[in-house]
């Protein structure tokens, strides 16, 4: 029931966007609308904003001119599936690390003081500085006897982006129990671990769930960007950049890959929503 309704709403949201897009194309000027030389409304011409149906049609066409090439749709789906699996790995890793860090920071004041600024800093370092290090050092590792695979570098970078919202949100959540509840656990002389498991973790769910959502988005982005950055083929990231290179002659093409990325984000968000439902009992105050 719930699931059907959310699918319907998702569809409605898509319809709204497409209508707005086409509506703007109807009324908007091909040169957009500028104030003081700054274009505040986008150009509405077909090469800047291709028609929805043009993009749809692109999906049905063969991807490349070679014999037996699959359609763009199939290519995008295949790439999305590839990126999805890496995102999942990155997400899981990021969530684990984020939760572990949050727990550590909650436990030790010094750890919090020392780490929190660097957790923040970690997200301000551009990937140019990180990707080569991950690829270079990762290449010298072996995981469970298996040599390092390129997708592992991508997953590591994906996790690197995903852990941040979890660390911040989870720390907030672990800090959220009120003084009365903490006093209760104190009165039981409950160990730190017991307080964590019986009180702080369940109480943190309200903060954790949005953090998981953000982490999901971050892991998808991390995967896509890292694919481009490290030159890993097979995923949506590669499609985005390759289709972008083709945009000059075929402006609708990049939109197919972008749509793929958006769909990927939706699927991951939907999975987190399912998790949210599973955790709902810890969230009685939530509507």
């Amino acid at each position: 029931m719930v699931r059907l309704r959310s699918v319907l709403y998702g569809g409605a949201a898509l319809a709204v966007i497409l209508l707005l897009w086409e509506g703007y194309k109807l009324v908007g000027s091909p040169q957009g609308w500028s104030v003081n030389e700054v274009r505040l409304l986008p150009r509405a011409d077909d090469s800047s904003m291709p028609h929805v149906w043009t993009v749809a049609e692109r999906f049905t066409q063969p991807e490349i001119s070679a014999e037996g090439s699959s359609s763009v749709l199939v290519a995008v789906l295949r790439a999305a599936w590839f990126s999805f699996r890496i995102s999942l790995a990155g997400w899981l890793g990021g969530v684990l690390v984020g939760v572990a860090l949050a727990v550590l920071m909650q436990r030790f004041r010094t750890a919090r003081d020392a780490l929190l600024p660097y957790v923040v800093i970690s997200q301000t370092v551009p990937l140019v500085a990180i990707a080569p290090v991950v690829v270079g050092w990762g290449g010298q590792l072996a995981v469970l006897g298996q040599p390092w695979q390129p997708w592992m570098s991508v997953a590591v970078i994906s996790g690197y982006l995903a852990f941040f919202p979890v660390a911040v949100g989870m720390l907030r959540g672990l800090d959220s129990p009120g003084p009365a509840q903490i006093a209760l656990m104190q009165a039981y002389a409950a160990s730190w671990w017991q307080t964590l498991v019986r009180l702080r973790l369940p109480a943190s769910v309200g903060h954790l769930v949005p953090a998981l959502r953000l982490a999901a988005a971050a892991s998808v982005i991390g995967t896509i960007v890292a694919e481009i950055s490290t030159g890993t083929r097979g995923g949506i990231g590669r499609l985005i950049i390759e289709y972008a290179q083709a945009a000059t002659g075929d402006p609708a093409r990049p939109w197919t890959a972008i749509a793929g990325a958006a769909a990927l984000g939706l699927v991951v968000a939907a999975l987190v929503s399912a998790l949210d439902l599973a955790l709902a009992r810890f969230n009685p105050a939530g509507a």
Partner: protein
Amino acid sequence: GVTDTAGPEGGPVPVKLQLQWFTQAQFAGYYAAVEQGYYADAGLDVTILEGGTDIVPQTVLAQGQADFAIAWVPKALASREQGAGITDVAQVFQRSGTRQVSFKDRNITTAADLKGKKVGNWGFGNEFELFAGMTKAGIDPGKDVTLVQQQFDMQALLNGDIDAAQAMNYNEYAQVLEAVNPDTGKLYTPDDFSTISWEDEGTAMYQDAIWANTEKLSSDAAYQDTTVKFVEASLRGWAYCRDEAEACRDIVVAKGSKLGASHQLWQMNEVNRLIWPAEGGAGMIDQAAWDQTVSIAQDTRNAEGQTVLTKAPEGEAFTNEYVSQALENLKDDGVDVTGESYSPETVTLAEGGA
């Protein structure tokens, strides 16, 4: 080091080649050498590693994660200056393939005309020919032009956001010619544009070269041997692509390039023009051209006032030793290594490069 582990019992020697970008006809010679079995015949088992935006091929090479790398000379020299022990062992592209493109009506035909314009620029170390050209024409790139970050596509030029765009002959220039001119409903033609060629302006720099590990070249006999074999088989691949451009296009397309077939054929053709004819033989490094590259790299300042190199390259930055041997072997095999008779084809681009 990867080549330390020579093939077992005389089996093929594993070799990794790091490219600087994704699969496209720019690297067709190496793919052809794999597909045609040239590497295998030379006893090499070559794995080609594609590039990415943040993959620096010469670094991968210097770190020992690849045995050879394809990189532009100025960028590789900059890494050398930072301690990367690498040597140019074959200058595959004899000419520069970079040009500055603008709509004809903007009247930008020389570097001097760029003054006061919005000039597209990739950055990524691909900007020094442009800057040298402007400097030579008496323009301060930091002040006299507005530099705009250029993307993977050429829409900014076609939209009129920028006046002149950087383009590789073999790639972005083709993209422009694959686009529909909204005024005519047909594809743009070369007549619609003016281009400034840095070869003509005298500020060209050496581009794609095969780089090898300096230290191993001096100490590891097996690696020296492998280098000769690798350069030889690679040039054989390039010679094949010169003669069989369509076949090489098909190889690249089959390898998964998403840019269409006509685009790749164009690229193959333009790349061939950068290699052939090669007077001293393909891959030979010409001291004068090298010196021009180095001097521009030392003297030209970019928008931030930085030069590529702070001093002249030290040690063995390039050597013709291996490529000479390779050329000898090729000549012995009757391969045309100068391509004197080469004449480019005329490629018709389809809409979107399909």
